[in-house]
């Protein structure tokens, strides 16, 4: 796990999603740890633009050769963009989880929810506990 990167400018969930906040918009994806655990991602199901998501609730699914996992929204708000490139190239989630493998952009309805998320150090400590 030493080689895995957890950028310091992101916030993390205990369900292994990350969020990068710029202004009132958060970009969401899954962490390097999550994609490593899943193995080769073969399908990503994302909600349509305009969907209202709630913090901690499912917004989509990710399917790998091993398993299917739910994706959980780190914060509440409206989906204003989804990464349509993942339809044809789900492998981007494995290759570039914090970049081209992003999944949705959420217009935050309650930015205070960000305080409940983990920073990079806390997330790594959480992983060390064996999650």
């Amino acid at each position: 796990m030493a080689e895995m990167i957890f950028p310091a400018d992101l916030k993390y969930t205990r369900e292994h999603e990350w969020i990068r906040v710029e202004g009132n918009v958060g970009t969401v994806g899954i962490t390097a740890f999550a994609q490593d655990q899943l193995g080769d991602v073969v399908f990503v199901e994302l909600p349509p633009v305009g969907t209202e998501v709630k913090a901690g609730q499912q917004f989509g699914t990710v399917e790998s050769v091993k398993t299917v996992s739910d994706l959980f929204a780190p914060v509440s708000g409206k989906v204003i963009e989804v990464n349509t490139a993942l339809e044809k190239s789900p492998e981007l989630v494995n290759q570039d989880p914090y970049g081209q493998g992003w999944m949705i952009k959420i217009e935050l309805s309650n930015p205070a929810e960000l305080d409940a998320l983990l920073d990079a150090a806390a997330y790594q400590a959480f992983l060390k506990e064996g999650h």
Partner: protein
Amino acid sequence: MSGQPRSVEPLIFEISRPGKRAYSLPRLDVPAAPVEELIPAEYRREKPPELPEVAEVELVRHFTRLSRLNHGVDVDFYPLGSCTMKYNPKINEEVARLPGFAHTHPLQPEETVQGNLELLWNLERWLCEVTGMDRMTFQPAAGAHGELTGILLVRAYHRRRGETQRNKILVPDSSHGTNPATAAMAGFEVVTIPSDRQGNVDLERLKAALGPDTAALMMTNPSTLGLFDTNIEEVARLVHEAGGLLYYDGANLNALLGYARPGDMGFDVVHLNLHKTFSTPHGGGGPGGGPVGVKKELVPFLPVPVVEKAPDGRFYLDWDRPQSIGKVRSFYGNFGVAVRAYAYILAHGGEGLKAVAEHAVLNANYIQARLKDYYDLPYDRRCMHETVLSAKTLKETTGIKTLDVAKRLLDEGIHPPTIYFPLIVEEAIMIEPTETESKETLDRFIDAMIRIYHEAHQEPEKVKAAPVRTPVGRLDEALAARRPDIRWRRDEG
């Protein structure tokens, strides 16, 4: 790491040559009528279909060779966890093929199929006795179908009582994926309950999740960890106090036959997998059977028809059930599967069924005891009919993953166990030997697992390259899933 295919059987289209035939018809002895006169133009093909053209001997050899690439319980060990791949005694097949069973038509008058109805009536009573339920339907064609039927019964029960606010179904995090899928399909919201450190349902988290919106808790006991939930009576009490029902996923009933009954633990609805516990063929060799049993409060909602016995001893199908959820399948389910289960139960008797459970549990514990020094045992408890090990430490020390271990087992002629399930165990290896395997077979499997463990430390490359003795090597599963190539086209062939 995609290995080159070693001896791939060509597609039948690839051995096709124009003009070859696998049949010859006798001379036409009636006047020939042009197809234009017989079939209206809009239903006629413009071009003949592109069917493969081969001689009979080529046809037979092609499919015989394909059949030899198969792995099944009749070929070798098949310890696929939670699937109960036990050997299916051949007498079941013989009985199911008796003309009185095999050649009946589902629309025959009742008086001409009294024996068939009697069989269903008896089997229902036997399975109710095994599970502690009051009545049962044989309509569902498989386990997941049984789950959906069972949850529709739960929904009908709450609706009848006017409790339409009960829109949540709880499932433990160790549950089969079909449980939450069933709940979602039946229109419920799914709430996952974590397991505690013993692998039981976490009682505090369960209490917190229960409420006036709880429709049911779906449980497999023993769970997919192969562990019996020792708090089951407390779980049942809590769910019932909240006004919910308890649903039993019968996938793992093999462990309990004759020793414990879901009905006595407090379960209200049970589905069975006849193709697991009662030795009828699985999947492609199926079809399956997923009977659903219920306690008396839910009997009015059972699918129609149900088999009844008149005071004069005559059997009949009762369609007059106004509260029934209706039909969930054509006719009465997969009748031939019921015949096989009937034969199996008759052959074993009560003591024999208890012995099934005893040997299933003994075999799993033997494997667990012999392998736990090599593979991690995340829940170190006496297991039931299956044991869940993990290659977590092996992966950390050697880089050899559960997937590699599974692939290497193929070289031993053994079907790998279920892997990466249950989801709460990292690098999970879920082994269910079943009662039908001898100590010699178990030892051969265990020795292979130990050999792979040592190989992982000494020659990891060999394990990563496995399998090498199968018709094809390691396939690119990701590419196959991302860009499936499953259709032959003439221009590409």
